[in-house]
């Protein structure tokens, strides 16, 4: 029958129009500025710099290695390396970015900077309300605007941040353990050397007895006092730290081998 379909259609639209007043599930609209949908965890917009602790300047993880600057496809990162060094969150002296700017009008949110960063210092932000009335200066974010705390990182990407924290903690622990082992080995070697030098007639058993207490003594400057003699062993680690400022983990073995070479 002609017109039947029209009546059916009219019924359907009427049901929709009236139904949206009855059941709220029909209205899928989220009225944005007031209410908003939670962002998915994988969402990303522009990069930001993570800092530990409370102060962004001292806590910045970035050591101005400039890998991200070189890798950035649209070249929107501008870094100036500092002349001096500042102690970072764990107290090690490090270079820091004297200037760290990202031009988010150029950034294409590719996340390559995040992937290449060896220090977990740059991460992707989820903030998208970045409109400004100045399209040049307003979209060039400097270090202060980019720096955001690790707690914020945990808020926006909880899973990823937890992984990163675990990885950093593991690295730190490994580095500490290695440093400790290296210091202990150095102390032991130094002690053995002095023992061998001073008490050559005493023989092998004497070196063994002197080495055992030396290894039990905590690593670091205290070892210096106990043995007294090995000045080279105590001063070497900080000096080598200065040389290898970029790498954290590989430092301990490197100093170890150097030390061994010196000793032998």
């Amino acid at each position, binding site marked *: *029958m*002609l*017109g039947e379909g*029209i009546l059916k*259609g*009219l019924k*359907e*639209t*009427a049901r*929709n*129009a*009236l*139904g*949206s*007043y009855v059941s709220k599930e*029909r*209205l*899928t*609209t989220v*009225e944005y500025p007031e209410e908003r949908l939670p962002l998915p965890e994988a969402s990303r917009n522009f990069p930001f710099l993570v800092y530990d602790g409370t102060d962004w300047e001292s806590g910045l993880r970035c050591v101005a290695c400039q890998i991200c600057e070189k890798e950035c496809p649209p070249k929107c990162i501008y870094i100036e390396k500092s002349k001096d060094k500042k102690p970072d969150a764990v107290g090690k002296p490090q270079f820091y970015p004297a200037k760290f700017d990202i031009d988010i009008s150029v950034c294409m949110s590719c996340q390559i900077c995040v992937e290449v960063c060896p220090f977990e210092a740059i991460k992707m932000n989820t903030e998208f309300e970045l409109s400004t009335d100045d399209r040049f200066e307003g979209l060039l974010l400097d270090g202060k605007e980019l720096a955001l705390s690790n707690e914020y990182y945990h808020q926006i990407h909880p899973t990823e941040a937890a992984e990163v924290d675990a990885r950093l903690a593991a690295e730190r622990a490994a580095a500490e353990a290695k440093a400790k082992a290296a210091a202990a080995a150095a102390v032991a070697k130094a002690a053995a050397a002095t023992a061998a030098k001073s008490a050559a007639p005493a023989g092998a058993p004497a070196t063994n007895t002197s080495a055992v207490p030396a290894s039990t003594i905590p690593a670091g400057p205290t070892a210096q006092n106990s043995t007294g003699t090995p000045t080279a062993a105590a001063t070497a680690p900080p000096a080598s730290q200065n040389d290898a400022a970029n790498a954290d983990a590989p430092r301990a073995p490197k100093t170890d081998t150097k030390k061994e070479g010196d000793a032998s």
Partner: protein
Amino acid sequence: MANQADQIFVLLKHWIVSIFPAVVQPYLGVVLSVVAIIAVFPGLFALTTVIERKGLGRMQNRIGPNRTGPYGILQPIADGIKSLTKEDIIPTSADAVVHFIAPLVLVVAVFMGFAVLPMGRNMQLVDMDAGLLFFFAIGASTELSIFMAGWSSRNKYSLLGAMRAVAQMISYEVPLLMSSVAIVMITGSLSLVKIVDAQNQYTWGLPHWYIFTPWGFAAFVMFCIAATAETNRSPFDLPEGESELVAGYFTEYSGFKFALFFLGEYLGMFSISGLGTTLFLGGWSAPLQVLNFVPSWIWFFAKVMLSIVVLIWIRGTLPRLRQDQLMNFAWKFVLPMTLLNLFVAAIWRFMGEGLLRWIVCSAILIGVYVIVGTIGMRRKKFGPRTYRYAE
């Protein structure tokens, strides 16, 4: 008291006119009525845009505008400010004068249609003996302005839109007139005031509206279809089909001229709804005798707004027709049905009172509707397509 409320605008007009000297009184009365029409209908237009946007939104399970003012009521004011402050662009190769005049011609022509509509008891600008004829003559001149707009823009989309509009409006002008002629045959008058008076009678408390007769109902349905096409409303909005023609004949219009076209279109809706109300829904008469205490102008505007809501409802429901479907529908279905309806109205007129004419007239109309609807509108069954290639 009820009578005073009914005639409040008429009394107000007489009171204002009586203040002035006798020489200017006749002119002043006309000016006052014109000002009232020019003030009321754009106001209704503003209201309608909100109703339309909210209503369409709800039909699509959206909320619709709700930011400006409570429930988005102030949205038309924001829209008005926006269209007033926008840049007015005239294309370099356009015919500037015609381009400028076209929206004005449209609005003026549409406003003139309101002159003969009785909007309440004793509330009409002019009680013309040939009111219906005047209305259609003026209504047809809107085609002129649309073609002016499309032609002067020097834009192919505008021109295509205008040509579609003219073809469509001329095609549907015929059934529109034919369905109204049935009323004239029964009433014996072209005066819209007399047509309303003829319907303003009650049997057992029920009104004598023409929609409650077989031929009247058929004519009303045909009138609605033709009126929807005449006002370029969906599903007959081919002249401004935005997916095909950008905006049709007003593609090259911006700013306030665009707003004028928009206004003209909605005013056209109001005037054609007002005419439909007058012809079929008893104009300003109450739907039940007991409701006669409600002022007549309230009934008129309530009926007009109701038909506007139905138009919005249809717009939210039906997809746009194709050009050939549009023409087929006009010439193969609507026009034959209206011609038949004239015949049925004549039978009704000469069969006299009684149940028999109800049965005969209904049977003829339903029978023909079913036959034409099923056979005439049947989709042609084409076989599998064969291709012929050059040898």
